[in-house]
């Protein structure tokens, strides 16, 4: 038996992976995160509106999702709804944050890992040098520019407030939005999947994986070579809180179940190697993220792929990359509807009201999966604030009965490289996991 501890590179923040080897196989894996920043503690006893400024600072790459989760939790606590205009704008900005995250994850974290040994290709994706590395970063920067049109800036905006948004978009903002959407769409078709729009549509109706070209095609070639089409499976239990484009629900033992209930969420005591609490739903570990979302929203292509290969490394990655396309279509629909209601007020509330006593929670979809915020207010101040992040589902540690989801997916693999890749397929975000 051999034990190896690895500090992980190219993650958001700091993370560690410990592998226990036996007879050429990984027998056990522990994922851990050394730091915490105490964000929930900082919120206590502050005016509730402060949470809109502080919670986005949990994470530099998905801070916008935290903002939306925060504002939704506050709205539920107050029993109010945003105007239609505001909720359409919020969906659009939230969607673009997911897009930039998917693009960065695939090009900065997945591809370079794969291509380290392939000389010619490595050059294209090499950090700070590769042409495609820069191309991807430029697309991500465009996506967040689309957010800033409404939110003032990205990262770390606080433009969503109870009842709506602080900005008042004009038709010219929507024109710029359309131009950016089109540019990213073009990038996706030409560079990511290498298909014409018609070809992609036909492919999604039930084409074979081998039709994919572009960088996703390249990825599949390498994933196949590394034996990762079927490897990297976790519990095949998948969950999403819904609230963006898919319904809330979970999948286990080949059946779908409706609506997640927060009362069935359990945060257990962390094992000795971790500062993070294991998270269970009805006592079981669940994976969250694009794969869960695509299955729950009935995406036929992903359903077929999942039926054939399970919740494997390859399926996880393909589900996430193809989600870019689905989200782009939703953004286009949302933009059309938004043109129709630009005259509406930006908020349904004139001013943040005094709140005597209230409780609210919200599920929101971030790039990596379901995020939950929960708030208790007393005399206008935050009495308790709780955040559950997607990474806590996916990368959280073991409990007495089950390994963490990522840990489970790594056990049984044959190389350190495979282990790293599988871990990356969950997208390591230590800053969210530890807050």
């Amino acid at each position, binding site marked *: 038996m051999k034990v190896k501890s690895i500090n992980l590179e190219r993650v958001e923040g700091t993370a560690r992976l410990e592998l226990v080897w036996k007879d050429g196989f990984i027998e056990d894996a522990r994922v851990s995160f050394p730091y915490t920043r105490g964000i929930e503690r900082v919120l206590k006893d502050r005016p509730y509106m402060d949470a809109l400024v502080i919670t986005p600072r949990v994470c530099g790459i998905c801070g916008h999702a935290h903002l939306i989760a925060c504002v939704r939790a506050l709205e539920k606590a107050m029993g109010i709804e945003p105007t239609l205009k505001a909720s359409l704008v919020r969906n659009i900005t939230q969607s673009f944050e997911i897009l930039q995250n998917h693009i960065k994850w695939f090009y900065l974290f997945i591809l370079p890992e794969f291509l380290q040994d392939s000389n010619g290709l490595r050059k294209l994706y090499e950090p*700070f040098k590769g042409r495609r590395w820069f191309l991807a970063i430029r697309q991500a920067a465009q996506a*967040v520019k689309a957010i800033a049109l409404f*939110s*003032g800036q990205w990262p770390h905006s606080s433009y969503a407030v109870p009842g709506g948004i602080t900005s008042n978009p004009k038709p010219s903002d929507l024109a710029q939005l359309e131009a950016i959407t089109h540019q990213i769409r073009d990038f996706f078709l030409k560079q990511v999947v290498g298909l014409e729009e018609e070809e992609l549509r036909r492919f999604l109706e039930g084409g074979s994986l081998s039709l994919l070209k572009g960088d996703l095609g390249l990825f599949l070639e390498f994933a196949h070579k590394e034996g990762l089409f079927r490897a990297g499976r976790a519990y095949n239990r998948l969950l999403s809180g819904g609230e963006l484009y898919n319904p809330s629900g979970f999948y286990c033992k080949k059946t779908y179940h409706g609506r997640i209930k927060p009362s069935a969420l359990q945060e257990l005591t962390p094992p000795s190697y971790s500062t993070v609490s294991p998270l269970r739903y009805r006592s079981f570990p669940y994976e969250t993220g694009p794969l869960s979302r695509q299955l729950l929203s009935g995406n036929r292509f992903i359903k077929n792929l999942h039926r054939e290969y399970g919740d494997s490394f390859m399926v996880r990655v393909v589900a996430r990359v193809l989600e870019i396309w689905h989200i782009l279509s939703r953004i286009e629909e949302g933009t059309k509807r938004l043109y129709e209601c630009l005259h509406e007020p930006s908020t349904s509330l004139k001013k943040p009201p005094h709140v005597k006593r209230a409780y609210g929670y919200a599920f929101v979809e971030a790039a990596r999966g379901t995020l939950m915020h929960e708030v208790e207010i007393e005399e206008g101040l935050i009495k308790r604030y709780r955040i559950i992040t997607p990474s806590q589902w996916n990368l959280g540690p073991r409990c007495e009965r089950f390994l963490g989801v990522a840990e489970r997916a790594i056990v049984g693999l044959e190389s350190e490289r495979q282990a790293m890749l599988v871990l990356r397929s969950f997208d390591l975000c230590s800053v969210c996991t530890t807050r």
Partner: protein
Amino acid sequence: MKALWLQRLTCCGNTHSFLNYEGLEYLFSRFEYFYHPSLSLESEEEVVERFLKEDFDLLLVEGAVRRDDVVLKELSKRARFVVAVGSCAVYGNIPALSDPEVCGLNYRFKERDGLLEDPEVINLPGCPAHPYWIAHTIFLLMQGKKPELDQLGRPKDFYSSLTHWGCTRNEYFEWKVDAEELGSERGCLFYHFGCRGPLSYSSCNRILWNGVSSKTRAGTPCFGCTEYDFPRRGLWETRQYAGIPAELPIGVSKRGYIMLSGIAKMFAPERLKNEG
């Protein structure tokens, strides 16, 4: 130029802000070597070990630090310039609020009581720092020039004017037409919504964010994230005594404020007062 970017207690927001810089390709082409823990392929441990033994040009730190961080102390002696990127590395910011052992590089909030007594760090506060502040400081350092700094170690180029400069609501501020509710492009956010624009130094409204906007342009008050007291309690409120803001724009006297706002209100043009 050889540079090392390291992260400590951080949300990685400065990294993602930096990646929005439109001249990124050109900037990186000018580095002889650049390391970033979440972007480079090498392992941080190996790189740090190497740099502990050789002099290099630039150490960039993102995130608040713990007082016992020996590695950063040693590395800062090897680097020709040390830059704190973002308010966490500058003042300690949110991570320092709940832990007395956490601080910034030179500072802990407003006290010069951070991890490093020297060298004098180039401070780029902001939560996050704007990509221009980071990239343009690097360009200057590449020429071997240290930017001119204010008393808090911030380059004057970016931090000598108020966030208020260039805000599209300036005319409303001038005539004291205050926003009574959120969600409009009209009205100034200073009086009712705690805007720190006239009390914070940054170039947000001059150079804009993501090339298109800023908080106050999007109707969100400035929260003063480039200053040591960010995040204050009551971020969306203007504390007032007898109807006068407890903190007035930098350099403005109470008497001046009362007199001017009285006159401004009286003569404010109708086109500003009518909503819509």
